[in-house]
């Protein structure tokens, strides 16, 4: 799939993460919707560019990273310096979607789906073999999005994973 085939949402512009000046918006978006308190540390540590969506203001974002390693248990975090080395050494690249948030009034218009679609495409282009994420068991809409729309598989049940005592599923998409 080339870039021109990627989904778009009318009236919404997708932009790449540029610098820390955008962190405040990212914090606001993830802070208001997600059950976990994510610090700016968490956001900043996700080094692969989060994408924010802007109309007149940021209304959604997805934050992700790529880990390098023989397997997930032995993965280092990606830096731009190490990416080429990793590809040359044929190491396993694993994508990770950390946070996805869309403001409530803009939901159900395909923004979240478009964001995920873009990052999956980007990670695939960068050589990832799989992409993983965790989502709350009770978050049915998120489960539907990842499983039905993109083919993520449930890999593991994580009991009492969240601070609110919620269980989570670790999902993984095995890229072709």
């Amino acid at each position, binding site marked *: *799939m080339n870039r021109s085939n990627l989904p778009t949402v009318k009236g919404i512009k997708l932009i790449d993460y540029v610098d820390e000046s955008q962190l405040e918006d990212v914090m606001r978006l993830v802070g*208001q919707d997600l*059950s*976990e*308190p994510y*610090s*700016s*540390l968490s956001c*900043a540590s996700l080094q692969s560019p989060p994408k924010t969506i802007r109309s007149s203001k940021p209304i959604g974002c997805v934050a992700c990273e790529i880990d390098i390693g023989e397997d997930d248990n032995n993965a280092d975090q990606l830096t731009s310096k190490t990416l080429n080395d990793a590809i040359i050494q044929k190491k396993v690249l694993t994508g990770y979607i950390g946070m996805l948030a869309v403001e409530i009034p803009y939901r159900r218009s395909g923004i979240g789906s478009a964001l995920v679609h873009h990052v*999956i495409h980007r990670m*695939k282009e960068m050589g990832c073999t799989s992409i993983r994420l965790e989502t709350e*068991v009770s978050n049915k809409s998120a*489960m539907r999005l990842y*499983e*039905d*729309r*993109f*083919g993520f*598989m*449930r*890999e*593991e*049940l*994580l*009991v*009492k994973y969240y*601070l*609110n*005592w919620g*269980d989570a*599923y670790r999902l*993984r*998409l*095995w*890229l*072709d």
Partner: protein
Amino acid sequence: MSAPYKDLLDITDLLRECASQCLSYSHPFTPSHDDAAQPDSVDDLTRDLDGLLTVTSLKNTGDAKAAATSDTSHELLATRGSNTVAPVDLRDAMSALELGDKRMDCCEIPIKPLNTIDAKEKKDYTKMYDDLITHPPRIAPKNLSDGTTSSPVIKSDNASSEVTHVAKSPCPSLLPYWNTLSLSADSSTCLLPLLLLQFTALEAYIGTNSGGSNASETLFCMLWCHEGVLVDMAQRLDIWAEFNDGGKTIANSGPDVELTVAQWALFASTLGIVRIAEAVRSIVRDADIYEEEDFGVEWDWGEMKLCHQEEVDKVNDLNTEDPTRSDFGFNAEGRLVDRVWDVAISKLEEYKSSNSSVDRETIEAIVLLLRSHQSFYLTIQLLYNVNEGNVVKFSELAKKFSRETVALFKSLQSCLANVAKHDLLASDGQLCTVGLLSSPDKNEECSLFLGASFDPFVNRRLLGNAPIRKARFNPINSVINSMSILVSELEWAVCDVLLNADTFGRLTRMLSNNSLRGCGGAVPTIPKSDAEAYSQVGINVLSRSLMLLNLYFDDKLLGQYDFVDIIGQNMVQLAAAPGAMVESIGWIVRLSKPLYDTLKALCFDRHRERSFTESVLIPAFGSLQVEAAAVDEMFREANDLDPATTPYATNYVIMQTLRLMERHVGLGIELGLYPHWYDLSQAFWYRDYLLTALVNVHGAMERVRIERKLMEHQMKLEQEEEEKKYAHEHSCTSKKGGSKKKKGKKSRALSTLTTSSPRDRESLTIEAISMISPESFEDRIDFTVKSVHRYVCRGMVRLIAALHQAKLLKEPPTTMTLFTSEKRRFEKRFEVFSMLPHPSRLTFEEYKMGSDFSAVNREDLIASVKECFRAGKASVDRLLEVILPSDTEVTSSMTEQRKDDDLYISIRREEIMALAKSSHIGNSNRWWICRRIIIISL
């Protein structure tokens, strides 16, 4: 600034600045030994870490010192020497920026009391905490008189959100409450609510459902539990003098007596809670159980030792009420708390019996509570202290104590039902705001008393960068239910196993059953009201840890059996392995570790068991299979056997491997990892294959076992016949017949054999072969269950195919395969099995072929579905014939029938009935969809 804040110091800017530069999260607080003192060294700074904010590497030390020397504050900002450059940890520094996030640090004090937030707001957790204005936490007390007598709740809404306040005082002093404790429900300082809340906090820490709350969030908030306070209580009660007096020297009446008795009860409860929590934590940590991170984190206030070295001997000399307890292997602290319980209970009993006017129900409830603490502590300590010499005795005692504890909890529950009639207790889920007395005037006093006792805003060290999980405090009835379940688990999940599991097969079955029972069993029979008290994933971490600790110790399995012998017996039992192979110690020793790990996996939560199987067990069994093949080859060469001889070692290892694989797929289904019909179809199809392989391997091994038995029997018969012939010839050649006088029982039997017809001999042989051991009977039940599962899995695959054929199932979305494919999903799902040489991993093409029924017409397909379930039902009927209800009197032998409560069988009647239900298409509402398809089709 409004009146309540006149003693507060505004240090917001300073805090922010310090935090943004470098705030050590590892040691954020240090005590105020001397307000003006500057620490001389890092050691001084970190010796006792409660109390004072430590800020390192300040640029603006002037402001800090100004704050530190302010006489309006008890909080000091100590600085290190200006020459010291503290290392900057980027993570700490960045996390410190989040200091003001109420969700990151839950021990901050809301300016607006929580109980003034309306219910609507409370529902929105995020909003509630975002809207709260907070200031940093209070300092923990160091003794009963530490702190002030002011209210712990600051009542004002005028504070600005931009200002952070540091309370002048540490927590409110406990001394006034200590000196006014009462045993009467009418008093505002009645002891019972306090003790029940302490128990509630303990349950939040270790309870069945919410077990794993952090100690910081539960126990550290109980101010009476802090070390200094406990030591102070011990000194004020003069416990050593009391122990020497035998603990029974109290006057008969008067307010002082009531106070003393209440103080002892509070001391016993508090110390008991601490000791129980410490013991539980030690057990979980010693067991090093897989990923129990909730118990791995900080125990904030260290070991609380009431006995100094010079007092340890004194404790060891203490006589307990029950002299047998001196052998229980307690350490000095354990002995001390046991003695404290004895003294407190005897004082309460004596006070109750000698005063007719006392509130008997309340005192009775306190006694029951203390007794249950003591009994619970004894149970877990006994199971923690077993060794090779005492394992049976201690397990029996632990079983007795666990039953006793459950009975005590039951009595406590009914006793509290009476006490609650006085409106003594009411809880809103927070430990700090509890207590509603019948008299509204006293309600506020009671709230102050309990608020002073439980301070959720007491300062405790933060746990690294991670925010900590909120504790959940349950209503007292749920607390008692939850603890009762936990204690009864100790009986069936630990004691019963230690006392009854005498073979590897039985141990495996018992652990496997326990794992299932821990989450409600295969057929949940839990009443809806109690459902919350049960875990979704297994038995409580305490039981699992104790089981794991006692699985192998003192170089023996369960501290009683030689593991090598046990494995050898199991190989003979299951694989009919010859003695020469079993005596090959090297091979059996090689088997020990992976087999031990299979047992260990059964002690984990079910979701963790699955991960452990993937990461540890399957790779281990992959290597083991290769070695088993080599062992078989060597055995054949050494004994000059035919190459077609049964590969005993390989069969045994493959059987164990298949069990693991089958359980792995089964757990995946149970944990919801196969959510859609197309996922389930794959899982059931694979499981059917594994179960078929398992049943086949077992059948093959059973045949070998029977053949061997037959051979041995025939050899025996031939030998006996020869002996008889020889004896007959000998008697004929002798001059005088002496056979008459020696014709006893044995010779009669021999004559029967020799004189019987070939048909009789055949029937005797069959009879001899069919005589099986009790364990073989248990294995047969197990494999019958497996065959039922196989039929159900096969039926499910066909049923899904039939439903799909009838277009009753929604097709998977096409977008699913945008970045992946069905084949890739299948391969990755079962990729872990590729590590195993046998059975070879099934491919996606095989699945497609095996589950493609497009060539079969609908009627035939449904008929085959019915056939599968009907076959399953036939096996179910056979199981019901041999497993009888537990109230039935079983007259037959252990190799013919078993009772439902038999410890060694792998299925219960109710579970069989559930299988019968699922096997009986059209008879259950759950199978309405099948009925529908049948109706459509026919």
